[in-house]
């Protein structure tokens, strides 16, 4: 995968690559089936329905296998290696795939720290460390989501051994030591979860929720992959070729007529191809067709005049606009069909997304009403998904992520006091924004003043923020509600001590 990959990049199948023997999963296969050498990644993403980061992962894998490439020619000069006959464990020097296609999150100065590590390894540590919080366990271990247990363990042992500080015993590792330890911890946590059937199932469910909430966030943000795909699928009108100037009077009457006929024939062929490109959206196939041999017996055609060229251009533009309108109507219908299908499968988010997109192409009042209803139901559902996601993150000690998910869940259910309290608790544990934590805790207490636990959370937030008088007051209220709680007694004692 290269850093230059963007939505407009056009992938191509590597020549000589036997696609039937590639060790790939269904996602990679599905994407491969959509590569025609013309369609952009953005359009393929929309066709496949995959999030863009998943497309990046898929193309990273396909590039590694030398199955696809971008640009004029493959960046490698040797033919692709034959795929293994049977599945083999990955090499020891396993590398998280996704990191390489992401921008750097470290300063070049960090690389210059004088430590006893190879520069390449330092780069790798910084790359992985920089993206550590954004990589899921599969990405971190560099395995696919359907990887077998043995592949997970192989990847883990390869990576864990690489990042184990004991491997570099006696060397000055500087600040890289703590980074390696953090990476090792994350790799181990990833392994421990993915190697355990029940925990992996829980994690997969969490990832599914996360994918859904990410899609929802894109939906809320108004990102419209179909729009880009649609635009990409309709070629811009190619400028109509300028009228061929009148041939100058023959200065040499003896010049063979064949050369004049060839030039005219070439101009006609070029115009035909331009028209075909506009209608088909591709030029590569036509370019491979041999040009028809000139027929000496046909008299040379008369070049078009400026008026004729303008008329041809107008006709072409009209055909283009008609083609675009037809495409929009057709797309709207397809989107409504897809929305109805999603509704049948209880996939409200996809349905809402498709309906909203359909409205862009056909602003029908009944369609709008249907969209608004589905949109409301989708948001309700997403609140539940965010809540599940937040609980998993909370259990995993990922407080920043949990705080974010609880906040999103709260947006969907603003009247839920418990959600306010959980959001406050997660924000407090994250420790970055105690003001926001206090606001949520206050909201929870406001909604349910007789719940002692909510007041405890608020008191704890005040304590962390150094607002000891407020903490004491809040915890005294909590103690009145639940006078036997040792937690409240301890916190209250602390608040009184700090306030005095």
């Amino acid at each position: 995968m290269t850093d230059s990959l963007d939505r407009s990049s056009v992938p191509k199948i590597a020549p000589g690559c036997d696609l039937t023997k590639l060790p790939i999963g269904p996602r990679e296969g599905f994407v491969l089936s959509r590569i025609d050498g013309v369609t952009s990644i953005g359009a393929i993403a929309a066709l496949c329905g995959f999030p863009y980061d998943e497309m990046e992962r898929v193309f990273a894998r396909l590039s590694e296998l030398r199955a696809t490439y971008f640009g004029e020619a493959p960046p490698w000069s040797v033919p692709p290696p034959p795929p293994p006959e049977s599945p083999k464990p990955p090499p020891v020097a396993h590398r998280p795939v996704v990191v390489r296609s992401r921008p750097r999150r470290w300063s070049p100065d960090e690389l210059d720290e004088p430590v006893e590590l190879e520069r390449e390894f330092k780069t790798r540590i910084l790359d992985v460390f920089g993206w550590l919080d954004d990589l899921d366990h599969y990405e971190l271990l560099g395995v696919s989501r359907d990887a077998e247990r043995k592949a997970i363990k192989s990847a883990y042992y390869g990576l864990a051994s690489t990042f184990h500080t004991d491997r570099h015993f006696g060397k000055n590792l500087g600040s890289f030591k703590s980074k390696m330890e953090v990476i090792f911890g994350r790799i181990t946590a990833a392994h421990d979860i993915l190697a355990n059937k029940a925990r992996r199932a829980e994690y997969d469910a969490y990832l599914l929720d996360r994918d859904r909430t990410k899609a929802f966030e894109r939906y809320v943000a108004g990102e419209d992959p179909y729009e880009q795909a649609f635009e990409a699928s309709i070629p811009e009108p190619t400028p109509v070729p300028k009228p061929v100037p009148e041939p100058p009077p023959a200065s040499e009457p003896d010049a063979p007529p064949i050369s004049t006929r060839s030039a005219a024939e070439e101009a006609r062929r070029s115009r035909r191809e331009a028209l075909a490109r506009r209608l088909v959206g591709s030029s590569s196939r036509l370019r491979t067709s041999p040009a028809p041999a000139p027929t000496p017996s046909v008299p040379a055609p008369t070049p078009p005049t400026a008026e004729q060229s303008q008329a041809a251009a107008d006709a072409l533009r009209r055909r283009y606009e008609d083609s675009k309108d037809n495409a929009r109507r057709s797309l709207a219908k397809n989107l409504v069909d897809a929305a109805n299908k999603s509704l049948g499968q209880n996939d409200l988010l996809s349905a809402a997304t498709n309906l909203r997109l359909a409205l862009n192409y056909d602003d029908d009042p009944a369609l709008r009403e249907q969209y608004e209803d589905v949109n409301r139901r989708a948001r309700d559902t997403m609140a539940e998904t965010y809540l599940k996601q937040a609980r998993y993150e909370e259990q995993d000690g990922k407080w920043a992520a949990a705080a974010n998910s609880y906040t999103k869940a709260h947006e969907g259910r603003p009247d839920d006091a418990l959600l306010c309290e959980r959001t406050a608790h997660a924000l407090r544990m994250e420790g970055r924004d105690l003001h926001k934590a206090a606001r949520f805790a206050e909201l929870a207490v406001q909604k349910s003043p007789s719940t002692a636990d909510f007041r405890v959370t608020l008191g704890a937030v005040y304590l962390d923020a150094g607002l000891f008088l407020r903490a004491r007051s809040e915890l005294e209220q909590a103690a009145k509600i639940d006078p036997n709680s040792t937690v409240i007694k301890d916190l209250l004692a602390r608040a009184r001590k700090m306030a005095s």
Partner: protein
Amino acid sequence: MNLRPLFVVQFDRIMALSSGARTNFKITSGTSGNLEFIQPRVDPVERTVVFALGPGADPLQPNTEYRLIIEDSKRAADRLAAFDGAPFEGREVIRFTTGTDPTAQTSNDPQAVDACAAVRALQAKCSGAACHGFDPTGRTRGPTAPAMGLSLVSDDAIDKTAKNRAAVLVQLASEPGGTGEASTKFPYGLPLIAPGASSRSFLLYKILIDSRRKAPLSPSGAVAIPPPHPDLALENPPADPFVRMAAELHARVPGAPMPHDELAPEPGHPGYGPMLLDEVRILRRWIDDGARPCVGTMAGGDAGTDVGADGSVDGATDAAADGG
């Protein structure tokens, strides 16, 4: 002499983990054939192989001369060799005569096991905040993520991060969960602590390669330690036999000797210092006794974690951490 004795055969170096097969040791007298033994146990601290009569075997006869015969086996799985691959050469015959007291009792390991002493030793020497203890801030590593995933700070931490947990440094990515001999002449596939099998516990080797412990590795005091097989000798071996032996072991065991002395728990602290010989022996006995908790009964580890009878980690279920 006890008529159901515990046989302890000390060698000049640590024996290989595959050694100790029953076929390597035979006891005969003029009137009896070979006696049945329980599976011998390798003690990496004392460099011994320990075995006893099997439960179905008749006790030794009083006032009888016996011959203990030690010899290598032709079967690859039963080879008698040192940890570095040096083969047991020749055939050793030791003669002994039993006494007259048929009532004396013995146990497989006569010294009492003090689990709390073992846990205390790990706490004192290994469990600083910078090492295999908790990170008190809980910010960078999290409260349950000590150095290299190994925490030796409590029963629970040992249970979760050390027992039956694969030692990453001696695992092969190409053979996850497999066991065997690595190119360094040290076995791979070992767990950090294999309850019941100190000789398969990587943690013990990490401690044994610390050559600062100036004490003879022998219960009886200084024992002559002959040089290793010429093919396995170090280029510049240390003069001190014990230091040389630790160095030989270190040449095979990946990673650093433990405890790290440079990782002081706090500024100005002299460091943890080496694990004393008595502490190592306590740890060895504790592991061979099942590495039981100091207090109460520990909760089970991760679901699915299992250990084989020989202390090997089940390749399908192990988790991992490393350190020492």
